[in-house]
């Protein structure tokens, strides 16, 4: 078996249609949800921050929790529309993303395509970039999605360039990072916090990484560093691995929350629909 069974990306027409359906559904769902909220709370879609209360403001936008903590300050929530926003999608295309029967890079590309279509439906401009430094032409209309498809299909999992400094793009209001986050400790600070920026880290691991072998002799190989480790698998060792994996996920979550971001953990074996549903659920939280 090849060490990297799925190093490339293939986005067939049927899959693009599925991505478009999911993106349209996400927009419709958000409009429905935000419409209800606007009916109760007034106009505006996305929470952006706070400003001091001024006469004439809708008293329903006063943040009562903040007032309770600081009675001297009366602040209202500031919301913004996605119209004119800029979405930045960062795709990890290092060698480790080629792991898995359905490659992690393939899974990441499908999700990135769906999120890009969603952003274009929302009226945002979408920029795609990869950890290896490649950039896709900026897309501002849904008709430009085909260019993003071609760019995504040209990605190959190779090298060891990992995404770093996520969220540093000055223009972006939303940042999505698709990666396995197999980053060396020296790569911190991974996430950058900035006012007006919300971001989501989408961690994608292969099925074998999510569900380690419980028996047999294995030679584990890191495709990026070439490091090898011999493993005599057992249920006990698999349980220890899963605990370590859980701790790693919690650390990622903590770091994301500390920089006003969020993190979602996916398996490359999951379908596009399952992965995108988890991604949206994470955004809603």
């Amino acid at each position, binding site marked *: *078996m090849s*060490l*990297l069974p799925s190093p490339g990306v293939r986005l067939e027409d049927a899959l693009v249609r599925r991505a478009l359906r999911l993106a349209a559904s996400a927009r419709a769902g958000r409009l429905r949800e935000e419409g209800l909220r606007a009916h109760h709370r007034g106009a505006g879609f996305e929470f952006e921050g706070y400003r001091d209360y001024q006469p004439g403001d809708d008293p329903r936008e006063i943040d009562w929790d903040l007032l309770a903590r600081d009675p001297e300050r009366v602040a209202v929530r500031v919301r913004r529309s996605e119209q004119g926003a800029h979405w930045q999608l960062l795709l990890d295309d290092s060698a*480790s993303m*080629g*792991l898995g029967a359905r490659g992690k890079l393939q899974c990441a590309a499908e999700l990135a395509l769906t999120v890009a279509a969603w952003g274009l439906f929302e009226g945002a401009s979408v920029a795609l970039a990869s950890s290896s430094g490649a950039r896709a032409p900026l897309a501002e209309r849904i008709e430009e999605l085909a260019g993003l498809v071609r760019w995504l299909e040209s990605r190959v999992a190779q090298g060891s360039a990992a995404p770093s400094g996520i969220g540093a793009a000055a223009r972006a209001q939303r940042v999505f990072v698709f990666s*396995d986050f*197999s980053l060396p400790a020296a790569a911190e600070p991974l996430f950058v916090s900035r006012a007006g920026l919300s971001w989501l880290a989408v961690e994608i*691991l*292969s099925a*074998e*990484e999510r569900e380690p*072998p419980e*028996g*047999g*002799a*294995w*030679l*584990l*190989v*890191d*495709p*990026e560093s070439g*490091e090898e*480790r*011999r*493993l*005599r698998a057992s249920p006990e*060792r698999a349980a*220890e*691995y899963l605990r*370590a*994996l859980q701790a*790693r996920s919690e650390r990622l979550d903590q770091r994301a929350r500390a920089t006003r971001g969020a993190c979602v953990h996916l398996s490359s074996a999951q379908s596009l629909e399952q992965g995108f549903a988890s991604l949206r659920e994470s955004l809603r939280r």
Partner: protein
Amino acid sequence: MMRFEAPLLLFGLLLPLFLLLAAMRREGRQLGSSLLALWREQPSSGPSAPRRWQAPPMALLLVCAALCAGVLALAGPYRAPRERPRITVLLDDSPSMQLEQRQARLVERIEGWSRASGAQLEWRRAAHPDWSAHDSAEYLWASDAIERYPERAGLVLSGARPVPGPVGRAGADRLVFDGSQLQMEAGAYAAEQRSVRVRGALPAALQPLWSMWCEKQQLLVDAQAREPLLELVFPESGCSADREWQGPGFRARIGLAALSGEAALSGEAKPRFRLRPGSIESDLCALQWQAAPAAETAVFFASLWEQALLDPSDCVPLAERQQSGAEHTAWPATEREQQRESWAAECAWAALLLALSACWWRRR
């Protein structure tokens, strides 16, 4: 000794061997992972030991044992008796068996069967043997054609189609069988120097008859002939003839020494002539015609001499050349086949039990 119905299936034993070797290789299967650090935290998965092989898991050992037992069951093991079965081959040695190398080909086939079956052979050769006296399971009849098939003995027939060729001699002429009828080739043996000789004292009364017969047969009477076609042996002159014997048209004095042998022409208990191919031995010392030499006396002696006169070496009796029959093979049932003890069922049960044990070990 253990033998197998299908020994080629034993190559299947290589499969569990390969499985074991693959499992014992230290490297194991290769798996890519970007999370080596998570495994590294476990003290039990440290750097590999220098040895290249490791003990296979017990479940795999059980599976391999089950595979071995299954392969053995499919190969059909059985235990043969220690003593090799003995088969007596009755080999027809009649002249027709020399035609078309029938006998040689039969012997080759029988020896091949003996090697394959493990039967130990004892050969008995006889021209036209008494088949029916040996119709039991430990006999194998071998001939080219046979009138009655055996009930219990094995039978191998080479088949016998008519074979054209010389069948006899009439003076210097040759009788030839052309496949359907006889043809005469006049003077075919004229150029050959054919001799006969007499040892002992030929009774004087027989001398004219003997000379006439030899002249008619174009035979040269030569006492020094090295390879005579016929040799007459009489007692030396002066033998003590104390008894009298009555022949057809003559009376004869006979010696004290009684003959024993194949031919008893007189119908008495003791034969007066012993016939062999190419030789006639007699104990007649003196012969006296009862009247003038009668025709029946001439026919008696001419018939006697012609029976023993050797045919030319290329002649085969007509009956042998005409004999026909189809090829047939029915090997005798050897003791090994009758008494062998099959172990296939035991191997199949062992395979099942081992497979179940492997499942139980895997699940526990």
